[in-house]
């Protein structure tokens, strides 16, 4: 996958992203963010952009081995009619296609994502967070892979170059559970209720899956305000 950290001279723009794996807008939003970064970075003299993902569980009550499909989950756990749920999934699948993602809700295995979040933190410690995030989202939405069970997560981790046995050890011990909880605590402190949610330079909030052009505008605004602040201090 593409490394999104660009090389530029000014101090980089930091984007902290709160998101979940079982979140169709988060995957769509990720693609749009990447497109926005690519467009912004193509402009001369722009700062680099650094991304860090943070954990957010949309449905922490989901069993690790949930029996049923996404429609069953929405109907039984969220009180949404099967007809409405199917319509919702059809619509989001169409929007995902628009950004080159091929959601397969027939194959999708709804799962508890806390261990997936632990894996993302583990991967961050190895310098592979972005790769892990992307691999898990693709596995969940496009490949019908299980992202709740440790063995399945370890297989996915090995695919991006992580050491499978050490991943199993980490996930079984809950090595990064505290890091997941810390992310969730920080989200609560920010008042984040829905994802994806983007915090830029620790000061600006952007809510939801935005078009690439919106991100370009926001990055430009951040860079401009930095320049103004720097000039005032000079």
């Amino acid at each position, binding site marked *: 996958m593409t490394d999104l950290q660009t090389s530029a001279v000014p101090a980089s723009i930091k984007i902290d992203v709160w998101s979940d794996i079982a979140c169709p807008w988060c995957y769509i939003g990720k693609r749009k963010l990447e497109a926005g970064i690519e467009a912004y970075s193509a402009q001369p003299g722009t700062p680099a952009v650094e991304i860090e993902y943070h954990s957010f569980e949309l449905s922490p009550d989901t069993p690790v081995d949930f029996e049923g499909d996404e429609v069953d989950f929405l109907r039984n756990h969220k009180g949404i009619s099967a007809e409405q749920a199917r319509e919702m999934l059809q619509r989001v699948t169409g929007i995902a296609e628009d950004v080159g993602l091929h959601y397969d809700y027939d194959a999708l295995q709804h799962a508890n994502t806390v261990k997936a979040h632990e894996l993302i933190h583990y991967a961050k410690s190895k310098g592979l967070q972005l790769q892990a995030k992307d691999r898990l989202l693709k596995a969940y939405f496009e490949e019908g892979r299980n992202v709740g069970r440790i063995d399945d997560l370890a297989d996915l981790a090995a695919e991006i170059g992580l050491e499978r046995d050490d991943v199993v050890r980490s996930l079984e011990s809950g090595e990064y559970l505290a890091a997941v909880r810390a992310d969730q605590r920080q989200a609560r402190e*920010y008042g984040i209720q829905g994802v994806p949610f983007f915090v830029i330079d620790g000061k600006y909030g952007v809510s939801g899956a935005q078009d690439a052009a919106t991100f370009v505008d926001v990055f430009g605004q951040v860079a401009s305000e930095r320049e103004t602040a720097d000039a005032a201090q000079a």
Partner: protein
Amino acid sequence: MTPASESMTSTEATAVPDAPTLRMVGPSGAVCVDGVCSIEPVAPSGQAEAEPS
């Protein structure tokens, strides 16, 4: 899981003492809340200050 078909401009501001304050920028996009991804536009979350318009 549902898409929000329209975005809306961020105007809400909520503040909690001692919580970090974010300045909301850009329109509100589609989000998932509590396991459900609404078709309808969702008011911005975050301890946010509205962006001056």
